[in-house]
């Protein structure tokens, strides 16, 4: 009842200390909670990022050889070929390839490139070797242009090896006079970054060796966290890379079974090695560890904060009811109904909570501004503030309810008791 506000407000104004503590507590809690939720939202946005691949079916396999025979590259090459064959032959394997690329590893290899014929701007871009099975193994198809073939990968490898096996003649600016031209597939995000019209197909990139990269394909989505904010930019070039590192895509639901049979299949090819397997989901989990930690911790802090504030309101209201026992008795003696007393305390609490919410909203934006300027936090969404306000109102009412009910049960006969 609006008409009740007057005397309640006037009474509160003469009890400033206690009133301002509830106001302050609610305000601080609202400001902190809303900003924590905003930080959680940011972290969740990061956590919701997709690699663009069928992560849950992927297994990364890394093999290390201790047999000295592997010191000879042709021998290693032949084992790699046999490994890939053995992997593809395994029941439950949808696709497998040799690659150094591991989604969600949080790093990899990158290069500095620019659009051929210009020298700036330069773009840092992740680079990985790929063959005819790479995209199939990742579970995607090339959206524009063409995929690579295995033959192409092998012949490219041999060609590049031949060129780089000796010192290349160079011009004064350090560029090789015999540039290698390779065909590449880039991510859509890179195409948009590098080319004003977003059309990458048919265009060429260049690096500091003077080597050229002709774009023959575009994949729609790619994300692999990397320092320097280049997670969405990638080029795959056709080559069989060195190193016994494989990416296996299991058929749906076969991943766990495969984890048991993969290493045996590889050790059958050559036993002089140790096999390490990681599911891409595990890599993702580790990569996102810090974000997950933040989400959990902030969630806990929010919960405890609201809990402590609720405790505070319960306590302060309880003491205030105890202190005003005689006043309540008098009010009852003068004809107040039980519900009048209940409403009195709830209204008082609602007013204090509301003041706190008004001040807290300002404080929330203030705190958010500090966060935005000092870190990567994003702007506070007004809808979050509304949710926070709702939480504080409900918390306030629920916390005041028990003490208010106790106040309601105070006997009117208290009024005639003399001290």
């Amino acid at each position, binding site marked *: 009842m609006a*008409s*009740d506000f*007057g*005397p309640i407000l*006037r*009474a*509160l104004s*003469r*009890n400033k200390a206690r009133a301002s503590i509830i106001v302050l507590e609610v305000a601080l809690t609202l400001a902190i909670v809303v900003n924590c939720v905003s930080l959680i939202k940011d972290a969740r946005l990061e956590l919701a990022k997709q690699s663009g691949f069928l992560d849950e079916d992927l297994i990364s396999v890394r093999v290390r050889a201790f047999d000295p025979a592997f010191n000879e590259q042709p021998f290693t090459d032949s084992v790699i070929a046999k490994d890939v064959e053995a992997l593809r032959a395994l029941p439950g394997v949808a696709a497998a390839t040799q690659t150094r690329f591991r989604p969600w590893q949080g790093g990899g290899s990158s290069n500095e490139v620019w659009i051929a014929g210009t020298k700036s701007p330069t773009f840092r871009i992740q680079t990985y070797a790929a063959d005819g099975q790479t995209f199939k193994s990742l579970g995607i198809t090339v959206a524009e242009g063409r995929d690579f073939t295995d033959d192409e990968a092998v012949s490219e490898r041999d060609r590049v090896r031949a060129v780089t096996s000796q010192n290349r003649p160079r011009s004064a600016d350090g560029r090789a006079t015999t540039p290698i031209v390779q065909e590449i597939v880039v991510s859509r995000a890179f195409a948009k970054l590098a080319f004003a019209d977003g059309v990458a197909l048919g265009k060429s990139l260049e690096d500091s060796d003077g080597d050229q990269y002709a774009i023959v394909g575009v994949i729609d989505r790619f994300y692999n966290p990397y320092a320097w904010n280049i997670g969405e930019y990638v080029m795959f070039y056709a080559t069989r890379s060195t190193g016994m590192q494989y990416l296996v895509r299991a058929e749906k639901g076969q991943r766990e079974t495969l984890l048991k049979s993969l290493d045996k299949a590889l050790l059958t090819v050559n036993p002089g090695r140790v096999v390490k397997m990681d599911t891409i989901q595990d890599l993702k989990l580790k990569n996102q560890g810090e974000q997950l930690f933040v989400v959990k911790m902030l969630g806990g802090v929010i919960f405890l904060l609201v809990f402590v504030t609720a405790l505070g309101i319960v306590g302060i209201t309880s003491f205030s009811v105890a202190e005003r026992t*005689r*006043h309540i*008795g*008098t*009010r*009852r*003696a*003068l*004809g*107040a*109904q*039980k519900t*009048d007393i209940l409403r009195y305390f709830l209204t008082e609490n609602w007013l204090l909570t509301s003041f706190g919410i008004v001040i807290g909203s300002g404080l929330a934006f203030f705190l958010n501004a500090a966060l935005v300027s000092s870190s990567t936090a994003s702007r506070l969404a007004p809808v979050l503030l509304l949710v926070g306000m709702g939480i504080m109102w409900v918390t306030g009412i629920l916390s005041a309810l028990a003490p208010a009910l106790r106040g309601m049960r105070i*006997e*009117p*006969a208290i*009024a*005639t*008791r*003399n*001290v």
Partner: protein
Amino acid sequence: MLKMTGIRKVYRTDLVETHALDDVTLDVKAGEFVAVMGRSGSGKTTFLNVAGLLDTFDGGTYTLDGMDVSRLSDATMSRTRNEKIGFIFQSFNLIPDLDVFDNVDLPLRYRRMTAKERKERILSAVEKVGLSSRLHHLPSQLSGGQQQRVAIARVLAGDPRLILADEPTGNLDTLMAREVMELLLKINEQGATIVMVTHTPECAARAQRAIHLLDGRVVDGDSHFGHLRSVPTGALAAAI
């Protein structure tokens, strides 16, 4: 106005049973000023609680202003207190956080009156007790006598049928006590029924008759001081 027949009130603990009121029968006519006397522990406060509908009782019947109030719900009791009874307490029972105006406003608030009507009543009641200049003072800024006059104004504003006073001068010095008694007498002369609990014979002597309580019983009947005057009740505020 107030008619009690065979009222009993028993307090029970695990060990003892105390008869705070034992077969109290009493009839107070409209316009009377009755003093209820007794030593401490005689049941005065229990009598007051029962008479003022602040507490329930265990036996007997109680009729207030022609209405049987023996077994009422808490809500009806509250409403009856609010509309028919005015209280004056020994320790004034003003709400310290509220100023004179808001304190006098208190019973009216629970009567759901319009703001205009409340204001009229408050101003007129405060004027009658001579505190118009202190309208926005807090109780702590007033003397004891002034505080009790605010409490009386609170009663006047409510225009009750019955005024219950509990040692109204108990916390006041002689001069202030006399002022308050004069005010009560004036109110009574203008038609209000007053029942005053007190243990001082000087105060009781100002009433028309006194009832003595001892161990929860009424003893030695009524003592009459002076003669009955029949004055029409109601319209108290207008009359003064």
